[in-house]
């Protein structure tokens, strides 16, 4: 049998918790090849049916009635408003969750205290809870009938069925993303370098800027990208809390739903294509970061 020279050490995909570890070259046997190609076929077929076809359908349907209709749908006043709101909510979620994610992972990886495990679990709640429930929770807390309803009404603060509610819901749904990317990296780094710097008299900010940050910057960027991607697409929580006021509290995903429910199918697909384009841009950014990290 011919000796294979290929080195699979370089075949690590991604980094951190999402990485695919190196695969050992199996003995070159036919049965193995059959399994391999069978698995490849299943994967490709699955991705084709679940991913490629639906995305193609979006684009095809968006352009079904021609370029003019597409342009009109995309440049529609309400679409632009919805896009602006989506971008605002995304920006807010990214800023808040980046700051929170850095603090939380710094705390949990560099300090020891009782309840660390509990705190780490709490941060993961948005991953496991249904977004609809997240939306409802905010209505029950900040809504008119809610727990803080009277207080907020007295001060004229409107959260539910308004932009602040949408921002809150988006932040809630996406808050583990940056933390989850940063924490394993910071944890693996240990705290010796920080202690060494502190013993030489460096302050907290200097330590972060010169010791911690260079180590986490790619993971941070990666976390921000994932957070942004999730924030843009968020539907459930935002849907509950938004009230669907066109031009006021409508985000892009909600706008798509409204158009679709009004049988404006082409417009719905046209607006969807904006989200698809944003997603593709984010994917490109994500892959660039992964490539750069190596």
């Amino acid at each position, binding site marked *: 049998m011919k000796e294979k020279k290929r080195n699979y050490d370089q075949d690590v995909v991604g980094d951190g918790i999402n990485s695919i570890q190196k695969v050992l070259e199996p003995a070159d046997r036919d049965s193995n090849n059959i399994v391999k190609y069978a698995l490849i076929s299943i994967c490709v077929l699955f991705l084709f049916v679940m991913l490629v076809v639906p995305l193609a359908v979006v684009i095809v349907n968006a352009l079904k009635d021609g370029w003019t209709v597409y342009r009109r749908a995309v440049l529609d006043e309400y679409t632009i408003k919805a896009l602006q709101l989506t971008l605002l909510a995304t920006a807010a979620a990214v800023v808040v969750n980046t700051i929170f994610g850095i603090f939380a992972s710094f705390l949990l990886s560099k300090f020891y205290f009782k309840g660390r495990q509990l705190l780490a679990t709490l941060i993961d709640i948005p991953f496991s809870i249904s977004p609809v429930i997240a939306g409802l929770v905010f209505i029950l807390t900040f809504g008119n009938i809610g727990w803080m309803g009277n207080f907020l009404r007295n001060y004229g603060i409107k959260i539910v069925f308004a932009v602040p509610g949408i921002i809150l819901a988006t932040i809630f749904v996406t808050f583990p993303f940056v933390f989850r990317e940063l924490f394993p990296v910071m944890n693996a780094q240990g705290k*010796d*370098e920080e*202690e*060494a*710097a*502190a*013993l*030489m*008299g*460096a302050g907290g900010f*200097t330590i972060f800027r*010169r*010791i911690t940050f*260079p*180590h986490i910057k790619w993971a941070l960027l990666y976390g921000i990208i994932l957070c942004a991607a999730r924030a843009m697409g968020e539907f459930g929580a935002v849907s509950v809390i938004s009230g669907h006021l066109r031009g006021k509290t409508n985000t892009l995903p909600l706008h798509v739903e409204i158009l679709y429910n009004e049988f404006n199918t082409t417009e719905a697909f046209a607006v969807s294509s904006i989200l698809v384009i944003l997603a593709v841009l984010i994917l490109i950014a994500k892959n660039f970061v992964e490539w750069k990290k190596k």
Partner: protein
Amino acid sequence: MYVEMKQINKTFDGFRASNNVSFGVEKGCLAALLGPSGSGKTTILRMIAGLDKPDSGDVIINKQKVNGIPGNKRGVGFVFQNYALFRYMTVADNIAFGLEVQKKSKAEIRNRVDELLRLISMEELGSRYPHQLSGGQRQRVAFARALAPNPQLLLLDEPFAAIDAKVRRELRVWLKGMIEMVGITSIFVTHDQEEAMEVADTVIITNQGNVEQIGTPEEICMHPQTEFVADFIDITRCEAIIAAR
């Protein structure tokens, strides 16, 4: 005594790391904290540096009680077990870090870094990163970095543990020579009795959070005072090492 520990107690989550620990180290002395793993020697070193706080007892450096003084004001240099070199900084930047934090002038920092690079015979390697160095070179950088701000006391945590057995002996001799040349009071932690007997002037034997015996290598070897020490020390090997010093 330059460094004194007085009735130090320290508990971590119910584990007694230090149990009424008292000892002193003379100025200019090179002392070894020797004991099996888990005997509390690293904890003692960290409490001297101010990285951990004792539950009770006094840490005295240069006749001053330093319990409430943060580590960076105690005038200590610390060499970590895995050196903890700043991996995103060059060798020169690693050495310069402590001086930059103290806001020393650029020229002064450059002079001191050059001087230390010469001391550790790494003049050519100042622009390398830690991952481009051998274990022995890393140790030398960690040593130079700890010395850069001119500390009065040098603490080393298992300085040879991360080094190949082959070059360990060579580095031991080098480090001892350096410490003598610089003339700095030093305390190092080790679990290797050969290392302690060969390098140290004073050996402090720890076991389960207690100090079992303090003395010169000869005293420890010839007159073990507790059953543990008699059991722990391999007399024939240690005699040979002491004779060869």
